[in-house]
Structure formats: structure tokens, C-alpha cells
């Protein structure tokens, strides 16, 4: 039994040149010795900071880029050797406003791609209507895409990716720039697709989304795999204990430095939230630090204190920040 997506020692580098007269050539290693596999019916997340190599990995899998070395198979087919066979069985959706014909209506956009994907003429009409219904665009299909909002475009994009009923779906930041309600609807749609048996590879910068949706997650940075596992496994793999969030006003840097040196404290991050300051203190596993942290902060300036278990975001920050 082979995996639906199988990536073995995959590498991809880009040559870029800068300067006009004295051209200097540089090689960026976007993906380095990456290996992972996605099983049939799985919803697999690919996480990592900007420039980590997520999109590059996906583009190799969907046959838009050739690997520099290594092998990638989708549905058992080598993407470098037989791209045509892969293309008809996978779908690709990326986030953002691009990738649609602005001057065509939503329905015509879908017609165009239905034709490119060889959807049989007889079933095209019903299929397009079905998908418009699924992504909640029924009734707007005659309008030109120019006038569509971001969320509408994104939903149309998804409909496009589903036209030929692909077995595997690649979603590259599908919820980017969408309002919370829209993003939630989109997530529900992704869940439904998985329930329908699709294998899905998803990238996102929203940790909550990854935690909510993904069966397994790979965290990559600088083209390399940092961690791989279920969200629960990832959370417990990094040695974070309790997390304390303290909302304060005007806490001096000296106090923050003091907390960092406390026993049992792993990391401290301070960020500004409106007129408040948010202090996130990660403790070592098993350490009880709430008391000592609060003692270190003048309670005149404490607004709110919250103690919680580590989230995927904490684990992610620990993984990526520490690398």
C-alpha cells in the first residue's frame, strides 16, 4: 500500500541574479532533503514561516516545478516523469486574488477550466451548478469576476479546483485575507471535502486552523523538516509546560528581564496589544511558575492573568524560533 503523496529527499534550488552591470548569481536552496508522506484520506498540514519552502514543495507536487533532486510521487506517479498523468487527478487552489479571468463571469471561468480538465460536456452544466451551490455563489455566476470580493474569488477558486472531482487537493493558504466568518465557512468546506474521502495537503499561517483541521502536520523551515506529527504530538514534543499570559500596562524592561531569569521559566515574549502589553511566559514541563511570575510583576499594573495548556502556536514558536 503506497502513500497518496510520497516525498523522498526532495530538493529544489533557484538561481537568481541581481545587479545590472556586475551580475552576481546566487543560489537559493528553497527545499532541502525534504521527506514526508501523506496517506489516503488524510488532511495534512504544511507549516512554516515565510520563505520556508511550502509553496515550492507544493509546486513540485503539482508538476509546475521540476525537483532539483529527489523524488516526489502523487498517487504512485512520479511527478517529474509523468506530469500529465498526475495533473488530471489532482486539484490546486492558492489563496489571494489572482488566478482568475477577471473579464469573464464566474460561470465562464468554470467553463473554461471544465474544458481544460476534460469534464464531459454532458455533465458540465450540472457540475458547475453543483459547485456554485457548494461554494455559495449561486445567483452570482453571471457576474464578471472583476467585481467579486476577496472571499468570493477565493470560493470561486475552490470551485475551480474541484471541477474534475480530484482525488488529491493542494490548498496553499486558502484562507489568507478572508474575514473570520468567511474563513470559518471555508474550513467547514475543507472538513466536508475530507469527509468525502479526499486527500488534502494544506498550508496556512493560522495555527488555530491547522490545529482544528489537520490530522498530521509537518513543520518546515529553510526548506528542511523540523517536526512531523499529529497536533497533539507536536504540542507535547516540545518541552513546554504551562503557559501564563499576563496583560499589563507599562511594565518596565527590567521586570521582563527579571522574569526571564526565574526558575522554571523557558521563554518570555512581550507584545503590544492596543494600550495593553501582553506577556507570554512559557514554563518548563512540570514547573509551577505562576506564583513567581506574578510576584515579579507589580500587581498594580496587572490587568488579567490566564494560565493555559500549550497550544500549537506555542509549539510552533518553540520549534521555529529555536531553530
Amino acid at each position, binding site marked *: 500500500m503506497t502513500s497518496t503523496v510520497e516525498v523522498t529527499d526532495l530538493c529544489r534550488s*533557484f538561481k537568481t541574479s541581481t545587479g545590472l552591470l556586475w551580475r552576481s548569481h546566487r543560489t537559493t536552496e528553497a527545499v532541502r532533503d525534504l521527506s514526508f508522506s501523506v496517506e489516503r484520506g488524510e488532511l495534512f498540514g504544511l507549516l512554516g514561516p515565510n520563505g520556508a519552502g511550502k509553496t515550492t514543495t507544493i*509546486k513540485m507536487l*503539482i*508538476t*509546475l*516545478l*521540476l525537483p532539483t533532486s529527489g523524488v516526489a510521487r502523487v498517487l504512485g506517479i512520479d511527478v517529474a516523469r509523468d*506530469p*500529465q498523468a498526475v*495533473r*488530471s487527478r489532482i486539484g*490546486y487552489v*492558492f489563496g*489571494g486574488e*489572482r*488566478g*482568475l*479571468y*477577471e*473579464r*469573464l463571469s464566474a460561470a*465562464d471561468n468554470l*467553463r*473554461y*477550466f471544465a*474544458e*481544460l*480538465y*476534460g469534464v464531459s*460536456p454532458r455533465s458540465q452544466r450540472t457540475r458547475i451548478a453543483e459547485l456554485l451551490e457548494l461554494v455559495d455563489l449561486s445567483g452570482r455566476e453571471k457576474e*464578471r469576476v472583476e467585481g467579486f470580493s476577496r472571499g468570493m474569488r477565493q470560493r470561486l477558486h475552490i470551485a*475551480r479546483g474541484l471541477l474534475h472531482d480530484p482525488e488529491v487537493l493542494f490548498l496553499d493558504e486558502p484562507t489568507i485575507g478572508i474575514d473570520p466568518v468567511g474563513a470559518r465557512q471555508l474550513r467547514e468546506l475543507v472538513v466536508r471535502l475530507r469527509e468525502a474521502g479526499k486527500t488534502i495537503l494544506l498550508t496556512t499561517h493560522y495555527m488555530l486552523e491547522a490545529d482544528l483541521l489537520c490530522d498530521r502536520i509537518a513543520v518546515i523551515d529553510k526548506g528542511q523538516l523540523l517536526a512531523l506529527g499529529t497536533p497533539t504530538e507536536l504540542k507535547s514534543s516540545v518541552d513546554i509546560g504551562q503557559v501564563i499570559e499576563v496583560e499589563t500596562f507599562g511594565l518596565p524592561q527590567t521586570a521582563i528581564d527579571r522574569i526571564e531569569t526565574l526558575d522554571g521559566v523557558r521563554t518570555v515574549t512581550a507584545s503590544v496589544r492596543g494600550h495593553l502589553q501582553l506577556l507570554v511566559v512559557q514554563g518548563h514541563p512540570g514547573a509551577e511558575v505562576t506564583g513567581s511570575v506574578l510576584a515579579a510583576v507589580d500587581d498594580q499594573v496587572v490587568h488579567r492573568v490566564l494560565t493555559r495548556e500549550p497550544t500549537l502556536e506555542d509549539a510552533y514558536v518553540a520549534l521555529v524560533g529555536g531553530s
Partner: protein
Amino acid sequence: MNRVVRAARLVGVVWYLQLRMFAVSAFEALMQLIWPMIFATSAFLIFRVNGDRELLIFAGLGASAMGIWSAMATAASNLLQEERWSGTLELLVAAPAPLALVLAPVALAMATMGLLSMVVTLLWARFAFGISIPVADISGFLVSILVTIAAMAMLGFLLSVSVIRYRTSWALGNALEFPGWLLGGFFVPLAILPDWVKPLSYVFAPTWGLAGMRDAAAGRSPWLQCAICVALGVAYGVIGLLLSKRLLTSARRNATLSLT
């Protein structure tokens, strides 16, 4: 058989949708329709004074073909560059349909616009200037127009294939615009071109198509010129087809399908 029907359908639908996109964009429509008319108008105005019938045909048809060529050379390459900008080029490549089957109807759509503008120009000449181009051999004339435009479309296809691989080659189309005018003998007789340029104009299909049009108008036989024009057009198409596979692989290796 089924595959042929599929391919024909694909070509038809892409052609139709592409025309729809042209129709929506006022700028594009202007480029493709008005441009040739302006050329032809100036030609008519200049040569009418002269009163030479043969010259009028030469100038009027040449000017109109010149405009069509301009629109086609620039549009074919710019169109694909636009697709790259809007992110749809990657989607076209990621689809299972052979890319040549997508590019060909796009070129065909431009050819259709070219044909339309030729007709509009001739009507314009007739009703605005009272110039009717006397055509001795109507069927030969029509066939010549069709093959000229088809051959130009194939050249557009060839150009657009190169744009897939080379991000800057959209500029090539623009650069070819003016040399095309001279090479094709649209406006100045080929005889005055320097000798070393002549071989270039012989492999430039519109040269032959236009010669066919003029011969048909003057009552001479256009068929040899038409045949050469068709042969060259087919050659462009075949070269484009062969190149499209290789350039596509090369584009995947060199990451030129997207902007970054």
C-alpha cells in the same frame, strides 16, 4: 476519435471565451479593430490623390494587413505575459490539456479579430471614402485573406510559446512589429529591400498571403502564393507544437511560469 472531438471542442470553447474577453475590454477591441482602420485610412487618403488603381489596391490592402499584423504581434506575446501576471498561466499548465491546444485557439481568436477588422476596413473604405477595391477574382481574394490571417495566427502561436519559457520575450512581439511591416511588403514593394533581407521576407508567411490578395484583386492567379503561405503557416504551427513541449519542461526547470 473521441480524443479528436474533445480537442476540437476545447479549441472551440477557448476560442469563444477568448473572443468574449476581447469584447469586454474596450482597449483590446480598439487595438484590434481601429488600428488597422487608421492605417488603411491614411493609405487611402495618400494614394487617392494619385488615382492609380493598382497602387490603391497595393496601399489599401497593405495598410490593413499591416494593422492586423501589428495588433497580432503585440497581442500574442502580451496576452501570455498578462496570464503570467494574473497567475492563470500556472493554472493552464497545471491542467491536463496540452498547452498547445490552449494557445492555438487564443491565437485563432486574435486571427478572428483580424479578419473582422479587415472586413470593417474594406467597408469603411467603401462607405466613408467611396473607394471600392476592384477585385477581379473574388474567391481567390477571400481565400488569400483567410490564409494570410491564419498564417499570422500561427506566427502568434509560435511567439506565445516562447513567452512561456522566456519571461521577457513579450517584448519580442513588440520588437517584431515594425520589421514585419517591411518584411511583408505591406507598404513598400519588396523589390526595394536590400538583398540580404529578402530571404527573411520569403519565410515570413504574410508576404505571400498579401501577394496572393493583390494578385487576386488584379486578376492574376493567387493560388501559388496561397499555397506557400499555408505551408509556412503549417510550419510555424508544427515548430510551435514541437517547441511547446520542450520549452514547457524548460520552464518547469527554470521556474519561469510565475512572476517570482
